[in-house]
């Protein structure tokens, strides 16, 4: 039964900040196994949509379904137990914890004391964080902290992982490695991915389907080729003049 439904579904999702409508009746579906990109110009409402999907903020209208269950008003830790996890655009490390402990917090989501260590080891290895396991997060650089955010989220063993600009601030080599890791997660670990991304090269190279958000509304949806040829998308990114 569960398998026929989309893994994640947002219906008429609306978030207001005072008089500003950050997300406007957004509808979105992510199927199991997909690798979907969510793009849009600055201020399009991508991060707000993420916050509403993961339960950090409550939408003013609309509903969020995860595995067919209405999770609109469910607290974040319960969504996490159901199999939803995320990273942040502006990184939010546990500054006083070591890398190992930060990942351990996530790993406890599905593991007890007996198996938690091997889970932590596995995730640290996958994210190439093995040598830094005893470093304190406050002392580490941005690229490493982004990998730790990903490791922490992976340790919860999610079915759906939402990545908020996880590629931002990475150099070419780091980005290539990161894209490879995303492919691996999607294909080998069977994790469904929804990624918000600014780095076009990464979205176009990784995602098989792209959703474009502008002013809180979905304005286009399709394969990378369709999206890059879509006049509404070009207009949203570059303004009307450039199209004319």
């Amino acid at each position, binding site marked *: 039964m569960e398998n026929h439904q989309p893994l994640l579904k947002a219906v008429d999702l609306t978030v207001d900040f005072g008089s500003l409508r950050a997300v406007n009746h957004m509808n979105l579906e992510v199927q199991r196994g997909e690798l979907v990109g969510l793009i849009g110009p600055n201020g399009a409402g991508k991060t707000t949509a993420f916050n509403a999907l993961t339960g*950090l903020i409550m939408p003013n209208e609309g509903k969020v379904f995860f595995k067919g269950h209405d999770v609109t008003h469910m*607290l974040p830790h319960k969504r*996490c*137990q159901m199999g939803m996890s995320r990273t*942040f655009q502006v990184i939010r490390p546990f500054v006083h914890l070591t890398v190992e402990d930060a990942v351990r917090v996530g790993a406890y989501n599905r593991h007890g004391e007996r198996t938690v260590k091997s889970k932590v080891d596995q995730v640290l290895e996958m994210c190439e964080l093995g040598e830094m396991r005893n470093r304190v997060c406050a002392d580490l650089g941005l690229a490493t902290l982004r990998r730790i955010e990903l490791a922490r989220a992976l340790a919860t063993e999610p079915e759906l992982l939402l990545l908020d600009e996880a590629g931002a601030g990475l150099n070419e080599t780091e980005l290539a490695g990161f894209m490879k890791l995303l492919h691996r997660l999607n294909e080998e670990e069977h994790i469904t991915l929804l990624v918000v991304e600014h780095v076009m090269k990464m979205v176009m190279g990784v995602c098989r389907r792209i959703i474009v958000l502008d002013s809180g509304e979905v304005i286009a949806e399709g394969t990378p080729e369709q999206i890059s040829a879509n006049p509404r998308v070009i207009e949203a990114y570059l303004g009307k003049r450039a199209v004319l």
Partner: protein
Amino acid sequence: MTDTLLQSIITGVLMGFVYALIAVGLSIIYGVMNVVNFAHGDFVMLSMYLSYMAGTLLVWDAVATPLITVPLLFLFGFITYYLLIDKTLRQLYVVQLAVTVGLQIFLRSLALIVWKAQPRALQYSIIQGNIEFFGYSILTSRLIAAVVSLIFIAAIAYFLNKTWAGAAIRAASDDLDTASLMGVNYHRTYALTFAIGAALTAIAGGLLMSFQQTDPQGGMRFGVLSWCVMALAGLGSLPGLIAAGVIVGVAEAVAVTFFDPRSRLLAIYMIFILVLWLKPRGLFGRK
């Protein structure tokens, strides 16, 4: 003169470990949920009365009473969290202040009504007498109190660093929303933190009853003590709390011996203000 001084320093150091244990509870509650528990000293007072009750009714030794009072205070902390503290978390700071100060007044009044104003003490203890230490005599019960306090501080350190709940508590202390997204149930984590903070005062209360008496106003002294120890230590360092507890204990003991028994709080506050002038972030704090 030097003998008396050394003697009071030894007494102060031993008391300092018990003060550190009390302050550990206050400090993890503040560190994790940003709530200053103004009733913390009165938790100690309540624990001492409960130890007195258990000791009198069951004819138990004071140091054994935590077997009963620790679960009671843990439960008390748990219930207090859900009934009171939880309701103040997203409120103005002054609401938290009013609630924990209100709890303080409630506990003091309750102690006055139930146990009346006169001090209570347990009559006897198996742990008698003194131990000779390089020519200085130490009350055995004080030595035991100090050692047990250190053991429990070490146990808390182990708990915070090595267990699931400890990791959740530290993560929630750094970033609540993120911890929540990693599967940490923050209501439960906060309730557990508050309950542990309260349970630690029960251990201290039992130890203190082996050589001290309790009265309804005793909470004042332990409250002031533990705020000062926490402020001296700065946040997030258990060794810092131990050192700060010792400083406060020695200051108190020296003032009581050489100046006036009624000057103990004054001495503690003077040390506190001195540190505030010289190192406002505490002696050992992070950040």
